[in-house]
């Protein structure tokens, strides 16, 4: 039963599809926390991205403009988040919680006010699925990697670019240094506040893209609370992935696999709910050091006060 499921390419295709809306906000969280700002607002930013993606896509009749508008809105709310946490030094976890509640309310409110209680229009343009010539013809691999939504490929490229950016460029090093030791970075002449803004805003744009994928990639509609906790799962994926892009992707794939497997095995002998618990349990084990210790950036969550 299990082996049959594992040899089905649609299981692996679903794994990749389900990992995408977790990997993107996990990558976003990585940027934010590498710069020293704890970000639990990914859930809310995803909702902002999903809603404004649909809104802009519907009114401009172009899904790509929808994507662009959503990312701008993600950047906007992240700027607000950064102002309150970085400039004013407010508690990052509490403000993140506030963003989540605010975004859930705002998007549901605007959905009802703008589109009414019938939901978003069916004719909203969606982002296309791509068929990669060459890859899509390979047996087994083809159905998995050869024809996915365009955002899935975008996500894979962003993971690679982010790794390069964070670990092989000057700016990436600077972002990481303000997350590890802002005092030293400040002494070395870096602008701690500006670099933290950068981390938070890039993070918000990536999280927002995760929401766009849900709304315009998988469906072409927005539903109340459609992020369904993925922003929080992304938090776990980021930690399990040890605050690195490839690690986040790997962990997101694990979560995606658990979800896909639980769907494929539905009605079978193994209770799907038990399978879905596993990634959360693994995250706790990773945090406690039982399966490879996860250590956050040293200054993660501590507001920087230049006068201290």
């Amino acid at each position, binding site marked *: 039963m299990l082996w049959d499921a594992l040899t089905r390419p649609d299981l692996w295709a679903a794994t990749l599809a389900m990992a995408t809306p977790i990997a993107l906000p996990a990558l976003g969280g990585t940027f934010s926390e590498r710069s020293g700002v704890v970000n639990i607002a990914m859930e809310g930013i995803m909702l902002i991205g999903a809603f404004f993606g649909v809104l802009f896509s519907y009114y401009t009749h172009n899904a790509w403009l929808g994507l662009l508008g959503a990312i701008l809105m993600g950047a906007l709310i992240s700027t607000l988040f950064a102002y*309150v946490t970085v400039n004013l030094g407010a508690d990052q976890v509490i403000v993140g919680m*506030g963003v989540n509640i605010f975004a859930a309310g705002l998007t549901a409110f605007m959905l009802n006010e703008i589109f009414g209680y019938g939901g978003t229009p069916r004719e909203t343009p969606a982002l296309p699925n791509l068929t990669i010539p060459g890859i899509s013809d390979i047996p087994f691999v083809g159905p998995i990697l050869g024809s996915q939504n365009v955002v899935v490929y975008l996500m894979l490229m962003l993971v690679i670019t982010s790794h390069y950016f964070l670990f092989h460029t000057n700016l990436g090093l600077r972002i990481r240094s303000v997350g590890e030791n802002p005092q030293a970075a400040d002494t070395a002449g870096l602008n701690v506040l500006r670099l933290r803004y950068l981390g938070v805003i890039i993070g918000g744009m990536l999280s927002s893209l995760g929401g766009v994928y849900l709304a315009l990639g998988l469906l072409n509609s927005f539903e109340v609370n459609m992020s369904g906790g993925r922003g929080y799962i992304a938090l776990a994926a980021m930690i399990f992935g040890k605050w690195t892009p490839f690690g986040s992707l790997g962990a997101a794939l694990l979560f995606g696999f658990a979800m896909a497997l639980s769907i494929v095995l539905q009605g079978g002998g193994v*209770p799907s709910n038990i399978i879905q618990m596993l990634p959360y349990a693994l995250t706790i084990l990773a945090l406690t050091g039982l399966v490879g210790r996860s250590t956050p950036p040293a200054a993660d969550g501590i507001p920087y006060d230049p006068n201290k």
Partner: protein
Amino acid sequence: MQKTIEGLVTPFVAIVIAVLIGAVVMLMTGHNPLTAYGALFSGAFGSTVNLSNTMANAIPLILSGLGVAIAFKAGLFNIGAEGQYWIGSMAAVWIGYSVHGLPPILHISLSIIVAMLAAGLWAGIVPGLAKAFVGAHEVITTMMMSYIAIFLSHYMLENGPMMQTGFTPQSPVILPSATLGKIVERTQLSWGLAIAVVACIIVYWLLYKTTLGYRLRAVGLNSRAANYAGINVPFHLVLALFISGMLAGLAGAVQMLGVQHRLYDSFSSGYGFTAIVVALLANNNPFGVILASIFFAALSTGGQSMQLVSGVPAHLTAVISGIIIFLVATKDIVQIQKRWRKRQTLASGKEA
């Protein structure tokens, strides 16, 4: 007295500003804020039935809010009250339908005690020990445990031992001997309200009138100093999460025995998350928790009538809640900055 008034100013100002922003949003979207807020108010407090339902909604918020507040006092952010609520609910319902032949007072007590222990251990063992001994951040561990608890409840109701055969996944109904009586008939208001008020008094007494409470607060204010003062910090961290979980579990138990009488399959009760907002608005004061819970309960019951009467979507109340958190979080900062400035002027005065 002075302190109490100062404690009330921040949340009050935050609420006023948030409500005003809500009014601006209503004006912008072509609604009359006075009609809308009027409908909200009368929907929440306007009749015996409405008032009873608001108070009934406040009960689980008070109890889980107390849990979040006591953890905050010890310097811990228990974001997983939602999961602890589910564990408490499961335990209470299980005792409620499976144990036969007990008189009501014993049956209810047993359900509540088992629910509190189960939820307390759920929070205390994994997140508590992980925090105390390897420093794993409780925000993440309690959140992960929350998801595990919710999936556990799905399992129990969909495939597991608590499943009742039928169309929708749900547990059997608890026995009459485990049911909490109603204060007002034909509403949701049960004697759980008395339990919530007593819990508030006990938490206040525990935090401010006992050595244990003093130690918990000392750990929360400065764990290193507490350690030097000879307080066993790891023990108190675990204990704080244990008590916090017990209160969230009590919230679940009271909701099950007083209102729902059985467990339904669902992704979220919402109480555990609102509890965080409650504790924040109350600034972790046990009696403030009662006021804040009534406020948020009123937003949720009144929001429905606001939508019916004035056409303003009830979700606007969530926007208002989000803004309140923002303001409460930043308002503290304004005060801290004031203190800094004062200190700096003092320092420069000395130099001169």
